[in-house]
């Protein structure tokens, strides 16, 4: 046993898979201890806030101000405010005004603005330009001037009695606050989803639920498959024929069709995460049953089994002591695969709108489905689907890697 374990942990594939899996598992266990928010709390008033550190504007006004004279501050400010559209418009005007296109770089804010300042003339008539366009350029020039202005902003408060605005302070361009001193700062490493929920917290909770679904489904499928496989393989005869008939049927009838039918029939209200897991487990035992049966048949007439039979041991005793230990490795491998395919099955169901009901807990599949419905993919909100996909892929990949590693340990013919 020890020797087998040592061999398993010497397999690079197994160890890699195991490490990834344990890392994910630890993540789902430790994260909720640190961030204790309920995963489905809606915090954002709006959809798909991008990842980043969110600082309360109101609180930062009240924080201690520091003056920092940073050379690039002006430039950064202008660069961040000058939109891509404006840059392209500037380029168009400059080209029309006769500046060689090769000299213009819309990514180089400094140079672009210098060229603009030097060349722009509102009165210059450019052939083919509409009046509306001309006005647009005049406005653009004004706003660029505004951008370049060095004046600060004035803070005002309405007087409670008169209602008139009274200046309470100013904010200079060189004023800074220390994020550490701002009362309310929220780090959203993966932004928010379409409902305005913290993606990372939700993702961690979803991963945990999906893993549980996978485990429950995997254990149910493995138990059914193991029982049927043992009965068919060990008892043989009509029992074997009957079980194999059913097994063959469910091999050919696609399990996802059964999944869809059952899930739909159960109805949205009754469909909790656990129910979904059970349904998945009940529709995916076929391969385990086949594999176990094949193994048991090859074991059935081995000497040690015959010896046990001659010694008068009961069938249960023989199965427990003379058969199970020999097929344990296959059962473990089958379980690992079942878990990973259970997670995928849940995700597939959820995308079809047949996932667990959406009010209790998130699952990886539900998160994918929300992202799909709100078109996160087409709108380029990568944080709403990519982390979910990567998580699903890493979980199933790590499990299959472990499985491949085990396979190579137990079936030496497959070693490189």
């Amino acid at each position, binding site marked *: 046993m020890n020797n087998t374990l040592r061999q398993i942990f010497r397999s690079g594939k197994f160890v890699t898979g195991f490490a990834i899996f344990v890392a994910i598992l630890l993540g789902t266990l430790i994260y909720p201890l640190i961030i204790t928010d309920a995963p489905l709390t809606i915090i954002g008033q709006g959809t798909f806030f991008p990842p980043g550190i969110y600082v309360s504007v109101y609180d930062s006004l009240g924080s201690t101000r520091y003056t920092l004279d940073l050379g690039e501050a002006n430039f950064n400010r202008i660069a961040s405010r000058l939109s891509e559209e404006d840059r392209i418009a500037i380029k168009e005007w400059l080209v029309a005004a006769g500046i060689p296109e090769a000299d213009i770089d819309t990514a180089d804010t400094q140079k672009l603005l210098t060229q603009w300042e030097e060349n722009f003339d509102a009165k210059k008539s450019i052939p083919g330009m509409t009046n509306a366009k001309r006005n647009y350029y005049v406005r653009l020039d004004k706003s660029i001037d505004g951008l370049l202005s060095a004046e600060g902003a004035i803070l005002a408060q309405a007087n409670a009695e008169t209602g008139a605005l009274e200046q309470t302070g100013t904010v200079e361009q060189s004023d800074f606050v220390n994020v550490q001193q701002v009362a309310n700062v929220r780090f959203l490493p993966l932004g928010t989803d379409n409902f305005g929920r913290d993606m990372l917290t939700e993702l961690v909770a979803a991963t945990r639920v999906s893993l549980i679904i996978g485990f429950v489904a995997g254990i149910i499928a493995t138990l059914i498959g193991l029982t049927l496989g043992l009965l068919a393989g060990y008892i043989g005869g009509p029992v074997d024929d009957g079980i194999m008939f059913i097994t063959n049927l469910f091999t050919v009838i696609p399990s996802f069709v059964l999944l869809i039918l059952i899930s*739909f029939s159960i109805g949205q209200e009754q469909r909790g995460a656990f129910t979904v897991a059970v349904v998945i487990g009940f529709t995916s035992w076929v391969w385990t049953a086949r594999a176990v049966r094949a193994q048991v048949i090859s074991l059935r007439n081995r000497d040690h089994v015959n010896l046990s039979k001659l010694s008068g041991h009961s069938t249960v005793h023989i199965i427990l002591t003379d058969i199970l230990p020999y097929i344990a490795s296959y059962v473990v491998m089958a379980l690992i695969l079942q878990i990973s395919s259970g997670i995928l099955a849940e*995700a597939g169901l959820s995308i079809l709108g047949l996932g667990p009901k959406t009010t209790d807990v998130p699952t990886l599949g539900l998160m*994918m489905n929300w992202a799909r419905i709100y078109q996160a993919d087409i709108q380029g909100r990568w944080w709403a689907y990519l982390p979910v996909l990567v998580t699903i892929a890493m979980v*199933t*990949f790590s499990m299959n890697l472990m499985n491949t590693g085990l396979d190579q340990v137990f079936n030496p013919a497959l070693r490189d």
Partner: protein
Amino acid sequence: MKAYQKYFTTKLVWFLTTFVFAFLLNFILPRLMPGDPVAVITQRVTQGMTSQSGAQAVYQQYAEQFGTNKPIWEQFFKYVVNVAQGDLGVSFSQYPRPVADILGASIGWTIALQFPAIIVGWLIGNSLGALAAYLKGGFDKVLMPISIFVSNFPAFGMAVIMLVVFGVNLRWFPTSGGYGFDLIPSPTAEFVWSVIVHYQLPFWSIVLISIGGQAIGMRSMAIYELNADYVKYSRFMGIKDWKIIGYVFRNAMLPQITGLALSIGTMVGGALVAEIIFSYPGLGFTLLNGVVGQDYPLISAATLIITVMVLIANFSIEIIYGLIDPRVKAAQAD
């Protein structure tokens, strides 16, 4: 040829038996659920309906089709007769369109998309797996982890990645639909071109999904065959290496054909979900619409059609396999 006829007959009987059971399951499963399905489902269906007469018609249609007041064998008999006549009921969500009409419009898209994609994926996957087993070394070391990763990548995930990369970012292909939304199906060059362009992303997603698993399977089979005793013996009888490689890959390919028959159900499942991501007008998307619209007749009929398609594919593969592998005939002759 006698032996093959025997094989064919066995497979045909098996196919028909499976069909009957699949049909039964399709009929029974929704009826096994707790509560009164008619009440639950009609309530669900009529909830969103504005037209009172429509709701009434659906209720009658549904009660008649389900006929829960009659004994179950009578319900089943009626179901069989209806299906045999091509009457799959009337859609709830697209009332009063018949389900057969909706499915008829989508089934062609699914077959034209999935059949070639699964075959192409199977061919590419097997070639890569065979190459990995034969070349070993670096090629194998790079290809195998990628294959394992890709084969575990969820089907919808692959579709989303393809959509984002080639549809949204590079803008090479359209992101949704089976043809341009501004076109009407017609045999014009413009329409055909639009169909071809829309075909690419779903097609290659399904191909990519199928490749990984096939490559892994083929690699294992080919390694197993390369170590077989006949390889050593053939070498020592002076047969050229390329000829032996021919034996090996032919023999490794055969279990892969059976493997395809067994996994086609799963592959079709993944492909249906990929259709949804691309809003491709096939059965997957229809199924999604059925679920969203709580359209029981549509879902029931769609799952039945999908099952039948998978069974037919499975049966065809087994029949072809019997022609290719001499061992099948030999086994029947005993």
